[in-house]
C-alpha cells in the first residue's frame, strides 16, 4: 500500500470509527461528524488543486491572497456589526498589517519570493490579523455600549472626546493581544504550532522548522498589535463628533443588550 493510499484509508477509518462510537452512545453526533469529515475532504482537495494551479501560474498567487483578505474582512466585518462601514474597517485593519509584514519578510529575503513561501506566510498573518481585529473590535464596541455614563462623565469633566475614549481603546487592544502573546509564550510547551509540524512532516530539519516558526510567530505579534490599533482607531473615529461629542454606534448598544 502506498503512503498516499494509507493516509486516505487511515483518515477515513478514524472518521468512520468516531461516527460509529457516536452512534453506539446515541450522542446524535454521527451525522455531523461524517458531514464535517466529508466537508473537510472536499475543501482540502479543492484548496490543494487551487494551490497546485497557483504554483504553476505564479501570477494567480496575487488573486489567491486577495481572496484570503476578502474572506477574512467579511468574517471579521460580520462580527463588528453595528459599526458603520464595518467591512471596510475590518479590511483595512487586516490587510495593511498582514500584507506589509508579508512584503517585508519577502523583501529582506527571510522567505523565498515564490508562491510556495509567500502564500502560507500571508495566510498565517492574515488569519492572526483577523483574530486580533475581531477580538479588539468586539470588545471595544461592547465596552462603549456599556460605558455611556462613564464616557459622559469624562467629557463633562473637560476631557476631549479622544481622551475620554482612550481608556476604553487601551483595554480593548490589551484584550485583543492576549491570544497572540499567550501563543508566543507557550510555544513548544503546550502545543507544537502548525508551521513547525508541517515543516517537520515535509522533511525539514528541526532547526529549520524552529527558525521559520519563530519568524512567523514574531511577525504575528507585530501584525496583531497593529491590527488591534487600526481597528480601535477606526472605531474611535466613528464615535467622535464635532464639538468633542461622542456617539456610540446605536447597533452596538442594541447588540450588547
Amino acid at each position: 500500500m502506498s503512503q498516499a493510499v494509507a493516509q486516505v484509508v487511515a483518515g477515513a477509518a478514524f472518521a468512520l470509527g468516531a461516527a460509529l462510537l457516536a452512534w453506539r452512545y446515541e450522542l446524535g453526533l454521527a451525522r455531523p461528524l461524517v458531514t464535517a469529515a466529508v466537508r473537510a475532504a472536499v475543501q482540502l482537495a479543492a484548496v490543494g488543486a487551487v494551490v497546485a494551479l497557483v504554483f504553476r501560474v505564479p501570477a494567480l498567487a496575487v488573486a489567491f491572497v486577495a481572496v484570503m483578505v476578502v474572506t477574512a474582512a467579511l468574517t471579521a466585518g460580520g462580527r463588528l456589526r453595528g459599526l458603520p462601514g464595518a467591512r471596510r474597517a475590518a479590511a483595512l485593519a487586516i490587510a495593511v498589517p498582514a500584507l506589509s509584514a508579508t512584503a517585508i519578510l519577502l523583501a529582506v529575503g527571510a522567505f523565498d519570493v515564490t508562491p510556495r513561501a509567500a502564500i502560507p506566510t500571508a495566510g498565517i498573518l492574515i488569519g492572526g490579523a483577523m483574530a486580533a481585529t475581531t477580538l479588539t473590535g468586539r470588545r471595544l464596541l461592547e465596552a462603549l455600549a456599556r460605558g455611556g455614563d462613564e464616557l459622559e462623565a469624562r467629557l463633562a469633566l473637560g476631557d476631549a472626546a479622544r481622551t475620554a475614549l482612550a481608556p476604553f481603546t487601551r483595554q480593548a487592544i490589551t484584550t485583543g493581544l492576549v491570544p497572540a502573546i499567550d501563543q508566543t509564550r507557550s510555544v513548544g510547551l503546550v502545543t507544537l504550532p502548525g508551521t513547525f509540524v508541517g515543516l517537520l512532516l515535509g522533511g525539514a530539519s528541526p532547526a529549520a522548522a524552529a527558525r521559520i516558526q519563530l519568524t512567523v510567530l514574531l511577525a504575528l505579534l507585530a501584525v496583531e498589535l497593529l491590527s488591534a490599533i487600526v481597528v480601535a482607531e477606526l472605531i474611535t473615529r466613528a464615535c467622535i463628533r464635532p464639538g468633542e461629542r461622542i456617539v456610540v454606534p446605536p447597533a452596538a448598544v442594541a447588540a450588547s443588550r
Partner: protein
Amino acid sequence: MASEREREAPGLRVRGLAVALGGRTVLRDLSFDAPKGAVTVVVAPSGTGKSTLLRCCNRLLQPDAGTILLDGADVDGVEACALRRRVGLVGQVPVMLPGSVRDNLAYGLTERDDASDAALTRALAAAGLDAAFLDRPADELSGGERARVTLARALTRGPELLLLDEPTAALDAAAAAHVGETLRGLAADGLGVLAATHDLGFAAAVADRAIALRDGRAVTGTPEEILGAGEGERGAADAKHGAADAKPGAGEAR
C-alpha cells in the same frame, strides 16, 4: 418684558431650544434664564427632557434649534472642553473613575487648576465629606458618598455654572438638605446653579427661581407659583383619591 439690564445679567440664557431624540420631540421652543448668584430649579417628572436640557447647556448634545448664551456669548462659539470646565455637570448616575477619591477630584485638572490637597479638601467639604475621604478607593463608596464626590469633582474645576441632574436621587433626607445648603452657599458666592429635579420638597427648599417643563416648553414663574401649581396638582390628585375612599370611610363612621 425683560429690562435691558436684566438681559445683560451674567449667567445662562436659553432661547428657543428644540431637541428631538430618535424622532421624538423632547424639547420645543424652550426659553428661560439661569442667572449667576441664584439657584434655578427645573421641575418635571422623569423622562420629560430634564437631562436633555442640561446636556445641551454644556454641549454634550447638539440641539436642533435655539441658542444657549453664557454671559451673553453663544456656547456654540466656546471651545467644548473649556466650556465644560466652566459649566460643570453633575450627572444623575454618580460615575466613579478608577483610583482614589483624590484621583477622582484631580482627574483632568490642568496646571492652571489648583490640585493641592487643600483645594481638594475644600471641594470635598463643600459637598459634605471630610478630608479622610481623599485616600478612600472610589469604588468602595456608598451611593450617597459617590453622589457627593461627583459634586466635589465638578467643583475642583472652578466652574462658573453648575448643572445638577436629580442631585438628591441617591441621598437620604439629611444628605439632601446638606446638598441644598451647599448649592445655596455656592449661589451666594456668585455661582450659577441649575438643578433639575422631580423632588418638590428639595426644589422648594433651594430655589430662587423655578421652571416647570410641560410638553417640552418652560412654564416660568416664582418658586411659589411653579411649586404651588405642582402642589396644587398633587393636592387635586389626593382629593380625588380621598373622594374614592370616602364611601367605605363613611360606612365605618356609622
